[in-house]
C-alpha cells in the first residue's frame, strides 16, 4: 500500500471512488444515481484500511418452486454474478436468510467456470450471519456462486453481500519474536 503524504493526512485529498462505501456514494446522489453536489469528504489515516467495496453478491430475492410439474429442483446463480476469487485472499460474507423451506442454500467454489464445483458453505434453515471465507488453506478458489436445491415445493428468501479483504495472515500481522 502506498504511504500517505502529509497532504493526505491533513484532509486535502479526495477519497478515491474505489474505496468509497455505498453510504458515501449515497451522500452524493439523490437516490437511484441522481447526482447532487458532492460534499468535501472527511479523511482519516485509517480510511484506506477501513473502507472496502462491498459487493452485492445477491440482492434480496425470493425463489419458489411449485409442487409437481417440470420446474427445476435447483437454481444456480447466473454466471455474470459470480464472485471472482482468484485475486482475493478473503471475503467477509454477510448472509441473511429470513425464510427457507424444503431446500438448501449452497455457496460453492470452483477454480474454473466450468467446474468442478465444491461446497464451501450450506444452510438448511433461516440464518443471519457474518463469516470470513479465506482462499488460504483451500477455502475457495477461482469463482464463488450460490445454488439452491431441494425437493419441490421449496421456498427461500435471501440476501448475500461480500466484502473483499486482505489475507488472514496480513490481517493478523507479523508475529513478534520472543
Amino acid at each position, binding site marked *: 500500500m502506498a504511504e500517505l503524504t502529509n497532504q493526505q493526512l491533513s484532509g486535502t485529498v479526495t477519497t478515491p471512488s474505489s474505496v468509497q462505501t*455505498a453510504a458515501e456514494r*449515497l451522500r452524493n446522489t*439523490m*437516490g437511484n444515481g*441522481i447526482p447532487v453536489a458532492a460534499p468535501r469528504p472527511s479523511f482519516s489515516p485509517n480510511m484506506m484500511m477501513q473502507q472496502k467495496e462491498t459487493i*452485492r453478491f445477491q*440482492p434480496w430475492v425470493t425463489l419458489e418452486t411449485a409442487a409437481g410439474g417440470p420446474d427445476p429442483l435447483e437454481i444456480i446463480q447466473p454466471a455474470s454474478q459470480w464472485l471472482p476469487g482468484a485475486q482475493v485472499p478473503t471475503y467477509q460474507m454477510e448472509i*441473511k436468510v429470513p425464510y427457507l423451506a424444503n431446500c438448501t442454500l449452497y455457496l460453492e467454489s470452483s477454480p474454473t467456470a466450468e467446474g468442478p464445483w465444491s461446497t464451501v458453505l450450506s444452510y438448511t434453515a433461516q440464518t443471519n450471519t457474518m463469516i470470513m471465507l479465506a482462499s488460504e488453506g483451500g477455502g475457495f478458489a477461482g469463482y464463488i456462486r450460490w445454488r439452491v436445491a431441494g425437493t419441490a415445493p421449496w421456498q427461500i428468501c435471501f440476501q448475500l453481500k461480500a466484502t473483499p479483504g486482505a489475507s488472514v495472515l496480513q490481517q493478523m500481522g507479523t508475529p513478534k519474536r520472543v
Partner: protein
Amino acid sequence: MGKTIAMQPWITLKGCTAYTAVLIQPVEGWINGENFTDAALNISLVGGLTSAGNTLCSLVIETASAPEGPWSPIATIAAAYSQTTKYFTSRASENTDKFERFLRWKLDPSLVTAADWTMTFKICATVK
C-alpha cells in the same frame, strides 16, 4: 415540477418466526432528500396479514439525517392488498410528517405474530 423515483421496484420477501433480524432496504435504494423539501411515497402492498386480518408484518418508512443514522420511523403500513400514498416534508412550518435527509424502508419481524409471513410491495417516490 417533481420527479418520480422507483424507490423500490416490486419485490417479495418472506420470513419465518425464528428469524428476528430486521430487513432493511439496500443502501443504493435510499432516497437522499438534500435537494428537495417534499416527498410523496406511493406504496403498493400485498400480504402482511393473516386470513383473519391479524398483522404478521408491517412495512416501516424510516428517516435519518445521515446514512449512519439514527433512523426514526415516520410511517407504518400494515394493511394487506393496499395502495396508499404518504406525504412527507422537511419544512418545519408544515404539519405534514417530517423527514430528515434520507428515507428508506424496513420490515421489522418484531411485529410478527406466531406465523410465517410474505410481503410483496413496491414504492414510487415523487419528490420536489
